[in-house]
């Protein structure tokens, strides 16, 4: 890995908007524009626009591509129809997670993967080893634009830029659309728990789309949003972050995401036997939701969790929820986990703070 830091193709837009920039997974990216809480609320109540140009965009093509992906991914790519996407994992041999990703089927011999910035090179290297006359993988590190338009007003706002007669994609679907003079992929997916879209385009079109969306969405309350609110929004929705809630040592089943591991198909994939056993008999560890109380120190990554005086695990992700006004956390604990509603304690700077076991989806109706 090189030590250099990549600039987002939208960097000049962010600079003009007065964003605060931080290094993240080898990229300089906005952590906030107007303020984390304000951006968080805008996304829940109206809409937020996020720069996701750092996310790895990988195209997988060729007559052998489906069979190749079937042998690598935990969710079954054969289930997808043209224009459809789903959440999946690239597991290692132990069932741990190299990366969690979104896989779209463009056509029978054409797939599109969106992977985490921190794993982009590793995933691409791994896929390249599987290349042959029947399958090829193309990555676009640093030369593609990605943005996420999220929130209850997202559809209204994006519709203003869509060509006449082109409908917006349905949930989890992707389509090619002409936006601001260029071609872009528009998917109805996201990482906030809200309705919304992820738009993938090229260096020339992307900045225009970003700028135009902010213009046409302004009256609806659209705000540009940074990595700070992206993290608080995803955690409220109970969505995992690789490197914290998932890792080489944490399986999708342990993370509570066994639904996206398909063991009903004949084909093998890395870690399959471990994942199959964990789905059948239960994993040795479980990811639970924790809610704190208003006015108490919020939970953070790495804080120990206790039940009935005994340490049962650690917080994998935690923060004070802007929507709920108290701390929320995902925690990886030894199975069997205490039941919903049971009291636990989180150790914060040497003190024990009360919390309760909750569902991992902290916001209702999302």
């Amino acid at each position, binding site marked *: 890995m090189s030590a250099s830091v990549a600039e987002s193709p939208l960097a000049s837009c962010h600079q003009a908007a007065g964003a605060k920039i931080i290094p993240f997974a080898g990229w300089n990216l906005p952590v906030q524009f107007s303020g984390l*809480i304000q951006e968080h609320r805008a996304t829940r109540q109206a809409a937020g626009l996020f720069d996701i140009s750092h996310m790895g965009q990988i195209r997988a093509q060729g007559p052998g591509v489906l069979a190749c992906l079937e042998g690598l991914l935990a969710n079954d790519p054969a289930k997808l129809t043209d224009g459809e996407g789903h959440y999946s994992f690239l597991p290692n041999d132990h069932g741990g997670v190299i990366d969690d990703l979104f896989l779209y089927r463009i056509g029978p011999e054409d797939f599109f993967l969106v992977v985490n910035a921190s794993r982009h090179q590793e995933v691409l290297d791994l896929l390249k080893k599987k290349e042959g006359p029947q399958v090829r993988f193309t990555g676009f590190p640093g030369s593609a634009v990605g943005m996420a338009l999220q929130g209850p007003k997202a559809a209204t706002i994006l519709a203003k830029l869509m060509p006449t007669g082109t409908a917006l994609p349905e949930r989890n679907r992707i389509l090619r659309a002409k936006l601001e003079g260029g071609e872009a992929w528009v998917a109805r997916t996201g990482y906030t728990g809200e309705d919304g879209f992820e738009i993938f385009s090229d260096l020339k079109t992307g900045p225009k789309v970003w700028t135009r969306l902010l213009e046409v969405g302004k009256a609806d309350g659209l705000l540009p949003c940074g990595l700070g609110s992206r993290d608080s929004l995803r955690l409220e929705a109970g969505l995992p972050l690789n490197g914290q809630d998932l890792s080489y040592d944490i399986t999708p089943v342990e993370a509570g995401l066994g639904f996206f591991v398909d063991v009903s198909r004949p084909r093998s994939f890395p870690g399959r036997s471990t994942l199959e056993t964990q789905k059948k008999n239960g994993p040795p560890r479980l990811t639970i939701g924790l809610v704190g109380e208003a006015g108490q120190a*919020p939970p953070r990554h790495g804080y120990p969790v206790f039940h009935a005086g005994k340490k049962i695990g650690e917080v994998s992700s935690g923060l*004070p929820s802007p929507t709920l006004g108290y701390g929320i956390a995902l925690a990886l604990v030894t199975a069997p986990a205490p039941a919903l509603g049971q009291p636990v304690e989180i150790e914060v700077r040497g003190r024990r703070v009360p919390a309760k076991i909750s569902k991992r989806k902290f916001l209702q109706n999302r």
Partner: protein
Amino acid sequence: MNTPEDLRYAKTHEWIRMEKDRATVGITDHAQTELNDVVFVDLPKPGKKVNAGDVIATVESVKAASDIYAPVGGEVTEANATLSTDPGLINREPYANGWLFRLKPSSTSTDHLLSASQYAGTLKK
């Protein structure tokens, strides 16, 4: 960025107002801007004894928890109780009602701390 002349500053972005045998400590305008909206504060209890440079409090935004260091040694005499119900005071009035705690300093020397212009100079890098 606002850095009042009558205060002394630590490189770690705390300010201190020295009066006779009472020192009031808070975080700077720069620090509150960097932290963004403060949503929780952990303050020391009166009677706690600290050395200069000890972690003495924690200020949290949604994104992160930040340690606050004691600019001078001494004994804590008072914590700003208003912050438990209105931590946003730190953002709105960092040098006034957003103060964090007071202590009885073990020495009135602040030679190891920065003047307003020296502190402002550290922010320009």
